[in-house]
């Protein structure tokens, strides 16, 4: 099936198999390997991206369902070589260790601030409960979101 979509501001018009998952399209066809596959069952959140401004687990969606959509992945977050405030915060606060959950986690954390510029610790923790991390114990991730909020990343 032929679909049209925009990814990180760039237009794509691929011909895809109807059963191709969006995450496989992004990674294997479009060459955007930032979003990762941790479970293929939408339980771990490593594949989290934004579709039309909404946070989505891209292993739970077919590529054809993204026809006409505006997609943002971790690769599109930095603008003109400048990191997004959430990326900068993860770096400063040591919000990552092995880095595998990180692209999905950063996208999920960005989505939290998009809806709530000054979340409480509880709101942050519940906001990322769909994203598993085995390395950090989440504490530095919570700190990262707070640091990003403090510099106005959600406004």
């Amino acid at each position, binding site marked *: 099936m032929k679909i049209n979509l925009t990814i990180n501001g760039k237009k794509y018009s691929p011909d895809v198999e109807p059963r191709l998952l969006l995450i496989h399209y992004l990674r294997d066809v479009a060459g955007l390997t930032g979003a990762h596959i941790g*479970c293929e069952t939408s*339980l771990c959140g490593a594949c989290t991206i934004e579709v039309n401004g909404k946070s989505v687990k891209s292993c739970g969606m077919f590529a054809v369902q993204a026809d006409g959509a505006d997609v943002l992945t971790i690769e599109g977050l930095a603008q003109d070589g400048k990191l997004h405030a959430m990326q900068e915060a*993860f770096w400063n606060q040591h919000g990552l*260790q*092995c*880095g*595998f*959950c990180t692209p999905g986690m950063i996208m999920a954390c960005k989505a939290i601030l998009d809806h709530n510029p000054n979340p409480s610790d509880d709101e942050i923790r*519940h906001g990322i409960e769909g994203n598993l991390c*085995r390395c950090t114990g989440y504490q530095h991730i919570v700190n990262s979101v707070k640091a990003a909020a403090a510099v106005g990343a959600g406004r």
Partner: protein
Amino acid sequence: MATTIIQTEKLVGKRIRRREDPRLITGTATYVDDMQMPGMHHAAIVRSPHAAAKIRSISIKAAAEAPGVVAVFTGKDTEKVGPVPCGASLPGLRVPHHYILAIDRVYLVGHPVAVVVATDRYLARDAADLVEVDWEVLPAVADPEKAIAPGAPPVHPQWPDNVAFVYNQEGGDVDKAFAEAEVIVKQRITSQRLIPSAMETRGVLAEWRGADRQMTLYTSTQVPHLVRTLVAGMLGLEENRMRVVAPEVGGGFGSKLNIYPEEALMGFVSMKIGKPVKWIESRRENFLCTIHGRGHVDYFEVAAKKDGTILGIKLKLIQDQGAYHQLLGPAIPTLSVLMMPGLYRTKNIRAEVIGVFTNCTPTDAYRGAGRPEATHGIERMVDILADELGIDPAEIRLKNFVHNEEFPFPTATGLTYDSGDYAAPLQKAMGIVDYTKLRAEQAAARKQGKLMGIGICTYGEICGFGPSPATPAGGWECGTVRVEPSGKVTLLTGSCHHGQGEETTFAQLAADELGVDIDDILVLRGDTAIVPYGIGTFGSRATAIGGTALYYAMQDLKVKMKKFGAIMLDSHDVSYANGQVVCNKMGKSVSFKEIAAASYRAMKLPPNTEPGLVSTHFWEPPNFTFGFGAHIAVTEIDPETGQITVRRYLAVDDCGNIINPLIVDGQVHGGVAQGMGQALWEQAVYDDNGQLVTGEYTDYTMPRAHMMPWIESQHTTTPSPVNPLGVKGVGEAGTIGASPSLVNSVVDALSHLGVRHIDMPLTPEKIWKLVAGGKN
């Protein structure tokens, strides 16, 4: 030549952000599944749905004819590939031949029986479903105690008692200790099976170039050199024809400290089809086919005097080995034995370990690897003893600690604790939480019918694995320091970090040691074609051993640079300081960059000195290092639901000198999360047929953000005398300290109801039943 002498700022001890992070936060890092190659094929593996069965026949015809399929292989094709190796050796150890694909019988759910290779990953999976196996299902056994009971189905028919090994260790005079005891406490304590669950599953990409007789294996591993040696051996390939690359690795926690069938299988397939082939483990496969951790049933007995002095410890340890031995499996419970006296002075111990085959996933090293189990046991027993004698849990620990003047302290299990001040972290922790006030609050809460607990764990950790005689594959590490002609510094390490941050901490060490800008330093690891033979990252060893190897290589280079500096300054009275060679008498210096250039240009060489600036050291540690600490958990329990709330969690760890406190905090937090996962939520559950019931994230309760409390991390600092950096290790500390402090806390909350012990995980159901029934 310059005349100014620069004083550089020291970086060791600074909370600096990590140098490896830019690629990870921008999604540009390269994990195995991010790699594509021209002509690359995809493999899907057909696995057993039964825990024990004979294979009557396998039909691959439909799969072989499916669209996109280029090959299907079964055990008959791979029979000559060497077995998956067990590196552990114990007297009388029974080692089943571990074929990479089953021949005529399977021993666990997930046992690989065939591999389907196709042009596309979807087509490979489609075709895998078309492989038909005619099974003769056999009875299975999944519980280690049931497995050694009479009449249990044999996992391996040649060993009907299901005993994989029996290992005994004794120190001191245990019988005398128990004869003289005024009190003896006994308890059965389990350390349940856990699933390591690194966020990146395993994955292998094999590329065979027949004309060059050259194999490149990209694999998500903690030990690339071991993979090279052992997988080359399995494939009958000369070791120097095999290159192993661990690209970005998405977590390991011990689960990637191993050699797996799929590593050799992808090599085999690539050699057969003459194309690169990739296999990426699904999460379901990861739950079934990557090693599990723990799996203990421990019977503890502690003999003591009425004043709380511990006289001796007995342990019968039943270790669930699973169906096979993976690389280190049988060695793991022996580490529990080594650590069973904890931080206490007792010289009398006796341990009997029974390794048991079950129709389950093999157990092996998972974060802590034997030490969390041992610590959980002794720390629970000390609390039980304190309860029995009516002594405060903190007081009984302080009474039994090894004294400061006794270091280096030889233990009853043959270790030598390097250095310590065991009371310091406990006293610091008690001060921070105001222990006395907490106990008063608890007493008041009880009067109001509220359930509040205070749990202490004081732990020791064997870090820095380890002296070679104590480590199956050598316990040293290699480090190369190469100063390039431009003065840039490249560090090559045999450590193979996968989240621990050594691209930063090793650069901090080198910046200080050599006196160069940290931005001039690059750390490389994980490629056997680039790095001299290394051992890898596990057992809290990278900084203590890998860092020390680099340290000694840098000392060599400084000596050599001084020789070059001396001829450049035409003076014998020179010294190396802050990235320069200085002649104080003349007030002149030559810079690092100038020396680097001169050493490669080689116009004038110092006597008996070769051009260039490269040094490699293989550092063999004289001993382990021993980290220690005290964790305190304060919990509250809702009697209506059995729900546990961790009100406060404090970790005071002593890991020796700290290079980067930010990274150490991260290691502690992550470690505590895994220990808390074991204490409260996680358990690999098998049914009686050997089916893994908790085979997905839906059923296996890994900690999520909203479940975790705030973790306070503090330190005391006792440098290790074992290495010149004074470092010990901290990778596993949190995991070791967390489960006993939490369980002790919850048992403490319920102790007035007659509860003395609860096995992990402390599910609300278990707690509610205890509150409702008042007994354990």
